[in-house]
């Protein structure tokens, strides 16, 4: 309800729309709609456009969401009014992410014959665009899955991929030098490569980007480099705004055959709330898998980590850091069980030598598996997103959620496990198209309310969304 003075009448392609200046102000300063002054039906503002599409846009401005995903035509109309960014951001808000409600929502087909090797999702505050590397091509799907743009990189295959914004992704490979920038807005741009100043032929093992709060600003990118001769490694921080290296962290040199003393970081993670960089590497040798986990405070020191632990028994198959839960999580390579290390315990005097890991799965099984040197955790991946921890096991995804008991019932926080959708024991009844036959998960990413999965030998990317569940109609 509004007083008549604030009512704006607009004539779009011959049809009259009335709204308030307050609603139009939500478009933001760059939109032609935001500056319209109140007007009467006798003297409306005329704007060229499609009235049917504009009705949807006006409904979006009033309610903040769309009833159904937008078409390419609606996105084009929204771009005309500089509304497309807001529209895309509303599609997959991070607040709507609920792992127990994740359902397969879309299958993104890829051009060519190369199966995807890496997927990434744009982090907030950007809309949740999906970036996929297949062969040497990197393709970006917009958050509404209405359009896609591809760029060709000089790499034959991409191993690590970070989506920085809907217009920029960075790609690296284990066997080829340099970090390659993919700018989707301009496919003909000259190639841009970031490399380690200490050794320009160094290959990329892993990458991670810091979190930014402002969409206009680009984050820092941490890249773990290993020299071509595999005798030195370091994590280099780049400022993506200026494309210059800012810091070199934890440089390691191998002398002689003592490889285990200088394991390069194969997994990086950024803990925004703690301003810490997780750098972990593992090495598989004749004595089993050994690993090295470091937490770096980038501002304090680039030579001495804040915390470091050497992994001997049941080394991690994969490791991830959770900001919200203030903990590190790993999957044991031998046991396949999930372990947790509380960051707060590490802070106050958790010294090297004391066991930081606590098994949140079946502890006894983990000990038995570790002592008998099984390899249950081989190929498992772990990732943290919001308040949850996700683990892939072959073709399935399991989720760990934290349950806090009431104070009078002990007030404990416990981690509990579930399968996302079905789990291995249950057969998927062939109703979900394209998801009937599952193969091993090769790469995955989380962003917005979505999870993106790349599976082996599938020339497409599965997108799972935790939108409100649809009711299966009677067949």
């Amino acid at each position, binding site marked *: 309800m509004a007083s008549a003075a604030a009512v704006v009448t607009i004539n779009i392609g011959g049809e009259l729309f009335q709204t308030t200046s307050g609603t139009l102000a939500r478009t933001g300063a760059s939109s032609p709609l935001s500056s319209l002054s109140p007007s009467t039906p006798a003297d409306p503002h005329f704007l060229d456009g499609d009235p049917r599409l504009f009705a949807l846009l006006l409904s979006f401005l009033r309610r903040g969401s769309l009833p159904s995903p937008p078409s390419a035509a609606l996105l084009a109309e929204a771009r005309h009014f500089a509304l497309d960014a807001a529209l895309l951001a509303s599609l997959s808000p991070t607040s709507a992410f609920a792992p127990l409600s994740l359902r397969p929502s879309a299958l993104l087909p890829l051009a060519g014959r190369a199966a995807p090797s890496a997927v990434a999702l744009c982090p907030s505050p950007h809309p949740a665009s999906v970036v996929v590397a297949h062969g040497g091509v990197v393709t970006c799907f917009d958050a509404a899955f209405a359009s896609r743009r591809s760029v060709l990189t000089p790499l034959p295959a991409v191993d690590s991929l970070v989506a920085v914004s809907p217009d920029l992704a960075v790609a690296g490979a284990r066997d080829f030098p340099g970090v390659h920038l993919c700018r989707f807005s301009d496919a003909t741009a000259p190639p841009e490569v970031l490399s380690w100043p200490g050794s320009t032929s160094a290959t990329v093992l892993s990458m991670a980007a810091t979190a930014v709060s402002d969409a206009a600003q680009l984050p820092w990118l941490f890249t773990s480099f290993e020299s071509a001769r595999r005798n030195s490694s370091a994590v280099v921080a780049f400022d993506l705004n200026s494309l210059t290296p800012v810091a070199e962290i934890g440089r390691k040199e191998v002398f002689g055959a003592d490889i285990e003393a200088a394991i390069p970081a194969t997994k990086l993670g950024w803990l925004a709330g703690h301003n810490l960089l997780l750098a972990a590497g593992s090495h598989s040798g004749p004595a089993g898998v050994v690993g090295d986990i470091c937490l770096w405070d980038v501002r304090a020191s680039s030579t001495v980590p804040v915390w470091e632990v050497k992994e001997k028994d049941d080394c991690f198959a994969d490791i991830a850091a959770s900001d919200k839960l203030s903990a590190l999580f790993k999957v044991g390579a031998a046991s396949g069980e999930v372990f947790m290390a509380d960051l707060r315990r590490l802070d106050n005097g958790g010294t090297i030598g004391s066991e930081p890991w606590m098994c949140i799965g079946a502890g006894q099984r983990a000990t038995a598996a570790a002592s008998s040197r099984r390899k249950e955790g081989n190929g498992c991946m772990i990732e943290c997103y919001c308040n949850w921890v996700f683990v892939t096991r072959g073709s399935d995804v399991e989720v760990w959620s934290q349950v806090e008991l009431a104070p009078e019932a002990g007030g404990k926080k416990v981690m509990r496990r579930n399968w996302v959708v079905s789990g291995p024991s249950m057969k998927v009844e062939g109703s979900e198209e394209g998801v009937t036959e599952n193969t091993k998960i090769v790469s995955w990413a989380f962003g917005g309310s979505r999870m993106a999965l790349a599976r082996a030998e599938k020339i497409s990317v599965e997108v799972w969304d935790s939108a*409100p569940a649809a009711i299966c109609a009677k067949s």
Partner: protein
Amino acid sequence: MGTAGGGRSGTMKQLNVGGKLFSMEASSFPLSLSLDSPSPSPTFVDRDPALLSAVLAAIRAPSSVPGFPARDLLNEALFYGLHDQLLAALSPPPLRGFSASLASILSPASEPFPTALAPHHDGSLCLAHGNGQLTYYSSTLDHHATIRTHLHHVSSLRQLPPSLAVLGSSSAPGLHVYDFLEGRHVASVQWSDPTDTRVSKAKVVAIATRPPADATDKSSPILASFESPHRENCILAIDPVTLKPTQEIGRQSGSAAKSSVPGRVVHLQELGLVFVSSVSGGAFGYSGYMRMWDIRSGNVIWETSEPGGAGRSSRFGDPFADADVDVKQQAIYKVCSKSGDVAVADLRCLSNDPWVYMSSGPRGSGGGYGSVLHCHKSQVFVSRKDGLEVWSRLEEKCGGSGNLTEQPGIKERPKSEGINERNYRSTYMDTEKDAERGMILMMEGGGNRLFVTREDMQGVEVWESSCLSGVISLS
């Protein structure tokens, strides 16, 4: 675009919704907006006109399929003060078992195997499934939230409006209360006895919250049957506000079948009684008891146990497989395990052998093994191995009973005054195709819906009566 009501112009209200004029009778539009002031121009509201027309159309023609999601329509109706009208229009017609059919299958996104059901009288459903997950569906069966409890298996569940769920597990002790909208553990209740230290870690087997008929009574206790590890059991009355146990009823040793923990607890609030039943089935058939306790005194009012007791000799080898109370009709119904007969006993005149056996209508084969019996909306739903049958009561003609008594061939007069087995009719509710999905494990009625789960079936079936013909076009 006006939607005109048929009244005089004096009672008309005009509304300008986003540039479209709506006019309707004031009485049909309990708008919260200040429309009373007579102004020359209609009041302007900055909302989507398409949604208001959809809301009005849904209210006028209840059975039509709306073009917008129910959740959006309900949000819009809330603004105009039409929420209750729309909710009534969207909810199913009164449940009549003999004309009900399968309306939809609710399937939660992850681990969709139900372990407990708790519908509410507004037609909403709280569902426990998989490994300790709770999913809440609103009264329009919109998926609302899925939360993880700390329990690994929820085996009994009840709703405590507006947003609490009371649950117990067969694998962990105690009664737990969760807020399913916030995903928070609110409290837990344990059965403890300071004079008997053996009573500890008791598990909850069955829960009864306030009967759906009077949701206004906020002080009616939660009743839960607890069983400690050495099989001693009792029923605890728990205050629904403070969530503390107030009273212990019917403590039993649990050493025999006649004193084992009840698997069904029904609170007969008007009579101040608790009805409990316990059935144990094994290789040699069923045995069980029914018992009624006075809540205030804690005395047994009536009990019967089968096999044994003082039943009719012809029914000696035919113990009941399941029993339930119809609170409104004040009658106990049971289904016999061997013959599959359904029998009724009037609560007002219980005696040694109060049972009236009903024999009319079609009956499924296979006797009553594995039968589930549930009373809802004055109808009795009985599941068989090969189907789901419903017993409905015909309205009795006043003073017309003279004909019946004179009929020859009646060997035994109905024992209880109010019950005449001739007034019951049984019909199949499902088709043969429905029965092929599996044996029915659980049945619960809520509002005008019946929720059914089957063995090895994912999700919950929702059965509703429908006004729509469901015509199939052949052209």
